[in-house]
């Protein structure tokens, strides 16, 4: 199921993505279009920056009082007739779900978008146990057919063009070959999914916001697929990372305004569905998952990353993401936020990600809950290097540089020698082993440094 069991370094995967330049341009422009839509709509709200501040503070407060709010949520949800489960990690999460399915003799599951279940690799797990799981979000269904992970947390199939979708549907849904009409393709998917909704015994959804005060939760979708699943099936399981908790129902107004403006540039999500209790004859479960979150909460410098409401604005604005594609981040959550969340889960496998950024800071600026993303990327670099995850070549190079820069005389000698070499033997630096030179000329080396000039010309 997962194509990226063995992660390829971001830089290598990105280079491969870029080798199809026309597709890269299209990917870049499509996501920029979403960023531009976001700009347009947030600039219509004079209070946007204070709304962000408020969202950030509510999350901060919730994270600082997590135990209180989570327990309150559990109590209130139970009082509403919901069964609450706690999972320490991905494995427990998956097993809880399997157990519920087995107890009820479930063979078919429909699932609406949930990055947490991607993070836990729930689909391959259930499928290996003989249970059918169908993703009902259109984009998710497309990548599921193709046996690929989503490449974007809001637009999971954004790396694909109409043609790709048409080919995929032709293969799996027997649509007309070469028919790229979006309406035709969507209709085919709709008919296919209708049957899946009707057949399913169990529906899994994510959780966007869990309200401690009421024990209820909100699921946001633009397609209404979460509702279709949850309303048709006998059992509804909602999976949430524990950071999804907010204290009060009134806080929803802040986050619902922030979320979709940031995500797609819409004023509000098409369906913001509030779930409180199972309907008659239905079972409702909530699985609350840690999976490394408490570790991140304990890391002072990275704690803020748990405020994330998964709007993906930081993906759309990220100039590196737009040109390298989501799969190059080899994790369920890609982009700038993925690059600060994933090293927490596995430092070794994700040591490349905090370096997949120019630290331009645009992510921090668009983030609706004011996560200092680019500062955390910088800090992760320091942690990873201290923990020994830099290559030996890089470490040696940096040591050399540190030596040269520490002694003015050595620096001047090296500078002079370097300039001299560039002038006299350009071939030594202008070769393909020098990654700068691959597609760029080296700067022209002048005879004299500024220091030389200054000593000669300074006015007394």
């Amino acid at each position, binding site marked *: 199921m997962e194509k990226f069991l063995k992660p390829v370094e971001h830089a290598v995967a990105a280079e491969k993505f870029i080798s199809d330049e026309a597709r890269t341009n299209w990917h870049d422009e499509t996501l920029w279009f979403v960023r531009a839509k976001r700009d347009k709509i947030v600039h219509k709200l004079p209070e946007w920056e204070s709304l962000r501040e408020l969202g950030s503070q509510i999350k901060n407060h919730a994270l600082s009082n997590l135990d209180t709010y989570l327990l309150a949520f559990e109590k209130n949800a139970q009082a509403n007739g919901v069964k609450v489960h706690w999972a320490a990690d991905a494995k427990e999460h998956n097993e809880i779900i399997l157990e519920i399915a087995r107890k009820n003799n479930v063979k078919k599951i429909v699932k609406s978008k949930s990055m947490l279940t991607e993070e836990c690799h729930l689909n391959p797990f259930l499928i290996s146990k003989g249970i059918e799981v169908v993703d009902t979000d259109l984009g998710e269904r497309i990548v599921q057919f193709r046996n690929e992970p989503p490449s974007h947390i809001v637009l999971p199939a954004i790396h694909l063009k109409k043609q790709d979708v048409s080919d995929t549907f032709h293969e799996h849904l027997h649509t007309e070959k070469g028919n790229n009409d979006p309406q035709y393709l969507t209709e085919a998917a709709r008919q296919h999914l209708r049957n899946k909704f009707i057949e399913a015994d169990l529906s899994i959804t994510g959780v966007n916001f869990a309200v401690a005060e009421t024990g209820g939760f909100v699921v946001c979708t633009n397609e209404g697929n979460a509702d279709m699943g949850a309303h048709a099936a006998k059992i509804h399981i909602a999976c949430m990372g524990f950071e999804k908790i907010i204290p009060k129902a009134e806080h929803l107004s802040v986050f619902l305004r922030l979320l979709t403006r940031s995500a797609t540039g819409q004023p509000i999500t098409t369906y913001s569905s509030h779930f409180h209790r199972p309907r008659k004859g239905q079972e409702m479960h909530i699985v609350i998952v840690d999976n490394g979150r408490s570790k991140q909460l304990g890391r002072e410098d990275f704690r803020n990353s748990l405020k994330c409401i998964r709007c993906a604005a930081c993906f759309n604005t990220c100039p590196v993401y737009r040109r390298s594609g989501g799969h190059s981040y080899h994790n369920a959550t890609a982009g700038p936020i993925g690059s600060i969340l994933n090293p927490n889960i596995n430092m070794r496998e994700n040591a490349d990600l905090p370096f*997949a950024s120019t630290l331009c800071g645009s992510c921090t600026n668009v983030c609706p809950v004011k996560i200092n993303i680019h500062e955390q990327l910088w800090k992760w670099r320091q942690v990873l290097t201290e923990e020994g995850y830099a290559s030996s070549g890089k470490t040696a190079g940096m040591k050399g540089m540190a030596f040269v820069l520490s002694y003015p005389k050595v620096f001047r000698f090296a500078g002079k020698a370097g300039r001299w070499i560039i002038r006299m033997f350009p071939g030594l630096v202008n070769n393909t082993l020098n990654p700068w030179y691959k597609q760029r000329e080296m700067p022209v080396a002048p005879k004299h440094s500024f220091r030389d000039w200054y000593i000669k010309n300074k006015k007394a």
Partner: protein
Amino acid sequence: MKKVSLFIPCYVDQFYPNIAVATYELLQKLGCEVDYPLNQTCCGQPLANSGFNGMTSACNKNFTENFKDADYVVCPSGSCALHIKEHLHDDANPAAAERIRNRVYELTEFLTDILKVKQLNVSFPHKVGMHISCHGQRGLHLSSMTELVSPEFSKPEQLLNMVKGLELSYPKRKDECCGFGGTFCVFEEAVSVKMGKDRLTEHEENNIEYITGGDVSCLMHLEGILRRQKSPVKIIHIAEILNS
């Protein structure tokens, strides 16, 4: 009279002495007393941004030594100035390091905020594209940012507007990163160059003769691509225009 100590980043000293000379002459013309501490090397940013901030202590110490008495430390490159402002530390002399952190300025912010330059007697009758550098903009707040809902301003533009004959334009995505990113430019070569090429395409749509900016590193990266493409578009640092 303001006393200014020039902080010329290592690669500017070595590869772009003209930009340093322009900075020096410009500050003198504007009535400053300018000196250049002779034993400076580098701010340490390439190390720190690569995750080796732990290796910068000797480099920091040297920097502090050179600039500890400065009234104003002025640098013609935003990202180096930002690095000093955010990360300069010296265990042997923490007070001196702090003093420097509070006195370091990028050139254009020094001109607008401290010298409060209101007019310049220069002309540069050319079509110029403005490249906004991320660290200067989002780090030092040299101009407003497209992501934020806040009033528009730009310190570099304010200065360029005083230059006679200069016709300024911006690329479509006004403040998108050019892809230089310090050692990112070599470790993520493919993305870095693609970002640079996209910047240049957008600038070229405005029929410009020059691209200017306040950060030499971004300009060096863009210049490298332009020269490889044998483009007639030239790179010029804002200090060179203001000193023309």
